[in-house]
């Protein structure tokens, strides 16, 4: 057991400085403000600069386009990116898709795609959710019809975040409609510049930009198929588990509840800093700082406590908790701050640069992306707590989730 501060070696210190230099150069305040306004989830310049250093796939060897970083340097890189608020949606979907490709794609397809991924030139969006299915992912209806040596794609995918700047979409489609639900699916990596692909933007409450993608007779070579035909569900299973934060790590450095939960905790930390700063510098009706008011101090203390509790809650449980805690505190503090807190960043007089305003809108999606908290509770119930499975006619055979 060890929670101590690490004294970086000289080499590690230099590495950390290199990372911050990269961020100072390619993730300026303007970039961050633009991201908050547009919610693209990706910074192309930063991503390519990372790719040049092998930092997109830092655990890969240099021959494969990675940087061969040891766990400590990987931890430094990931932590600094997170603390700086570097856009991560497309990095995340690309990493998840890459894990699937590494495991299931043909050597030819891997050679075709992975070097570009490592170089930061190629990003991959996830084509799982559809207008008609999200949590029940195995109900996907986007059709894959084999015509000669091509798969023809017809249908639509929803919340395909990053599709507008990604090169590919990892698509789950129904190739065998006559087969049982979970046995009629195939995964195909679809180049998004093919004829018949139409991408339309969708803007969310949290200020994120995602997409709906329409596929009309899109013809994809079967060489882009990933894993065996009809085995699409198994192909995605490991990726979905990774999304739930179940991937093991024995570096003793990582947070224990996965990437998404860590992001939510980061949002909680920003909210807390703003709330403490606001309460410490704003006077109540009696002229004393609000932070000295018992009711306010108790609410602030609960937020501080909840942050540490989230960090200490493992796996999917941590993600469920962080989402629920963020939603609750975002609403509570916006209410506490009052109507001045409604003004967004950029508006004259916006409180704490609009953090309360933003967090309140952002928080709701955290209980949905990467698996709704209800689905995650179902998974935790059976896999962690050991409760019996739901009745047969409602059975969810595995953890169907969406990334959005």
């Amino acid at each position, binding site marked *: 057991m060890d929670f101590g501060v690490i004294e970086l070696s000289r080499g590690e210190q230099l590495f950390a400085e290199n990372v911050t230099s990269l961020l100072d150069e390619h993730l300026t305040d303007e970039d961050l403000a633009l991201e908050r306004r547009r919610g693209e989830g990706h910074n192309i310049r930063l991503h390519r600069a990372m790719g040049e250093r092998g930092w997109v796939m830092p655990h890969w060897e240099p021959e494969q386009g990675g940087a061969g970083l040891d766990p400590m340097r990987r931890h430094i890189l990931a932590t600094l990116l997170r603390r700086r608020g570097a856009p991560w949606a497309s990095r995340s979907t690309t990493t998840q898709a890459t894990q699937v490709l590494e495991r299931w794609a043909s050597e030819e397809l891997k050679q075709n795609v992975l070097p570009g991924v490592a170089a930061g030139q190629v990003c991959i969006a996830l084509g799982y959710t559809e207008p008609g299915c999200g949590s029940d992912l195995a109900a996907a209806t986007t059709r894959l019809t084999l015509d000669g040596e091509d798969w023809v794609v017809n249908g639509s995918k929803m919340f395909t975040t990053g599709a507008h700047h990604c090169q590919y979409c990892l698509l789950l489609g129904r190739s065998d409609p006559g087969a049982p639900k979970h046995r009629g699916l195939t995964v195909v990596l679809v180049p998004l510049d093919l004829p018949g692909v139409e991408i339309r933007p969708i803007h969310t409450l949290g200020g994120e930009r995602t997409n709906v993608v329409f596929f009309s007779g899109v013809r994809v070579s079967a060489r882009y198929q990933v894993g065996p035909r009809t085995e699409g569900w198994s192909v995605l299973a490991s990726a979905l588990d990774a999304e739930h934060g179940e991937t093991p790590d024995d570096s003793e450095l990582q947070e224990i509840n996965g990437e998404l939960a860590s992001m939510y905790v980061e949002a909680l930390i920003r909210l807390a800093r703003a709330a403490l700063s606001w309460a410490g510098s704003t006077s109540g009706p009696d002229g004393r700082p609000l932070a000295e008011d018992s009711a306010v*101090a108790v609410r602030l203390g609960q937020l501080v406590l909840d942050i*540490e*509790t989230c960090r200490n809650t493992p796996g999917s449980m941590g993600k469920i908790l962080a989402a629920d805690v963020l939603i609750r505190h975002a609403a509570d503090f916006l209410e506490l701050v009052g109507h001045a807190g409604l003004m967004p960043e950029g508006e004259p007089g916006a409180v704490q640069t609009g953090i309360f305003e933003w967090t309140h809108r952002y928080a709701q999606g955290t209980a949905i992306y990467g698996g709704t908290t209800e689905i995650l509770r179902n998974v935790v119930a059976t896999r962690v707590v050991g409760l*019996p499975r*739901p009745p047969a006619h409602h059975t969810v055979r595995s953890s169907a989730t969406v990334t959005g």
Partner: protein
Amino acid sequence: MSAGSGPVVVHPILEHEMSFTRNSYALEATQLELRDVFHDFFGKHCPPERVRAAEATGFDNELWRRLIGLEVISMGLPESAGGAGACLVDLVIVGEQCGRVLAPVPFAEAVSTARLLSRCRSAAADSWLASAVGGTRIVVQAGDSAGSTVLVAAGAVADGVVTCHDGHLVLMQRALHVDAVRPRANQASLPMAVWDLDALRAAECSAELGPDGDRARTLVADAQRERRLLTAATLVGLAAGALEIGVAFASGREAFGVPIGAFQAISHSLVDAAIAVEGARHLLWKTAWMCDHDPQAAQLWVLMLSRQTAHAATLAAATSLHVHGGAGVVMESDIQLFFRRAAGWATLCGDPVADLREITAKVLAAMGRP
């Protein structure tokens, strides 16, 4: 990383961008063994029937004898005082197993007070410590005692209560000829009693333990921190035990053709309790580690831990009781034993308003604001 060898963690809100910390919750092999030994011991020697049998007094003398025999008091004393030098992480591991079966013994009180006595360096303290280790006397603490009486959670079974009086560390001694200890019935079956300090002072039933002034205050603060930490450990155990009962019931009890735990209303409520318990346990380990490595910095974590373990235990017990339906509210149910003690032990873990205010004050002070 050894104690006091470098900077210890700060709360994430206060973390500097270039600060990196380890995040290892791994237990040593010896600690896993310790957990298993005490899990088996309590499973064998403290079934629910023993807890019920001890409801009136809140104390099981035979169980306490056995624990003394397992050196539960000397375990946490430094080797220089004849102890095994166990760290607080070791002690919370034992504490969790103790709480899991609702063991009617003053574990947190006695262990933390023994550690306090071992730091006094006086003949009186050493004499009482020897009795405590041997099991011939039980010594607990009661913090500041400006008043004439004090309600002591383990007061009904204590032979001595350590207090800080007029800046001196003093041990008030129970005496047969002085009517100064009055047990009080309570919902949680704690061995609670009022100690009449004025009567004991008048009868000169007290022993100076040596330390005074700042040293006395520091020792008392340390001892209270450790008592809260060990109480939190028992609360984590209680929470886990309560949850286990609820899950077992929901897995067996059928309604509408299936085990009721298959329905989301039930399963989700138990999952939320499990989430609270897992977080509480990990926070318990981290807090114990911090108390071992930097007690000053650890105070913030002890406050957070107190709130989280109180929450986890009361949530797990209440949820589990509710899942039982009518079977949960009858006195024959085991879960109501957990329910009453969850609330009871939580009251010994600090005060919610004061704790949350202190958490805020500490973080604001560290942020450079008053």
